[in-house]
């Protein structure tokens, strides 16, 4: 799926959403979710090629792949969290959106912990005594 298809689909979805939001708000939310999922799935293939490049760069830079995998997981969590929060906001559920963002933040913090500990250990090595 290239940008013209995404734009076309987005415009169509927006028009439908404008109509449905007044008539059937539930259907509008479902349509919004479906659109998000469709875009996400179609972009997965392109994401895979980006990840491949990143893996190659990590290998060339001789970086432990564990760190790179963690960063990719964090990016994934962030995107999913943003998507979910945006859908919830569209449905007018600000509170739920905030909870999703909160959960995503905690998960990102947990995932970053091993990297932070590794940095701390490295710093401790630098300290005299």
């Amino acid at each position: 799926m290239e940008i013209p298809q995404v734009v076309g689909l987005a415009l169509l979805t927006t028009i439908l959403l404008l109509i449905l939001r007044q008539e059937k708000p539930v259907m509008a939310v479902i349509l919004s979710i479906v659109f998000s999922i469709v875009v996400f799935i179609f972009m997965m293939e392109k994401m895979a090629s980006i990840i491949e490049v990143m893996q190659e760069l990590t290998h060339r830079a001789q970086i432990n792949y564990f760190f790179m995998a963690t960063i990719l997981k964090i990016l994934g969590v962030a995107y999913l969290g943003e998507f979910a929060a945006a859908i919830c906001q569209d449905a007018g559920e600000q509170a739920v959106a905030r909870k999703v963002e909160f959960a995503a933040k905690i998960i990102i913090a947990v995932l970053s912990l091993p990297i932070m500990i590794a940095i701390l250990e490295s710093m401790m090595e630098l300290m005299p005594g």
Partner: protein
Amino acid sequence: MSTLAEIVKNILYIIILASFLEILLPDGGLKPFVRFAIGLFILISVLNPVLSLLFNEQQFEVKLWDYQANEEQSEEILKKGRDINQQITDGNSAAVKEKMQGQIASIAMLVPGVQELETRIDMGQEGTFQKLHIMVKTGDFMQHKNSDNPQVFSENQSIIGEPEKTEIKERILGLLRNLYGMQKTDIEIEFQGG
């Protein structure tokens, strides 16, 4: 110096990687968090080689478990090895082939009715036997059959029939099967002139 060059090269890769990751950052409330994690990642990536340079200077000898062979170089070495192996196999195969052809021809000549014959062995990629081709030129089959002392090299040429050809063929096959353990399917016998 080469270690420093290596570190600089790695840092360059890390910068490119970081710029790439920067593009992928999502917009929204989660952006600063992801940015922080990426920052940590860059920090550890840069810190690791610097620390190993500072504290492991005397341990730069190549250890087996640390050894990272250059893939292109390894491939080249493997290719050379394969070429040498192929040359040795080809040389040996050619010698074995020549001797086998001679031996088989001498043995097959003992079959009554065979005046001359040519042998050709097909060898496989790894010097394995694949197929034996024998081209037989027949002599006087009946004379050999009836004589008490068979003459191997007969000068008398006469046209022999299909039953005699089949008998010669069977005898050659039997001989080669018993002596070399060859299967019928591995041997192809043709008669000169059809």
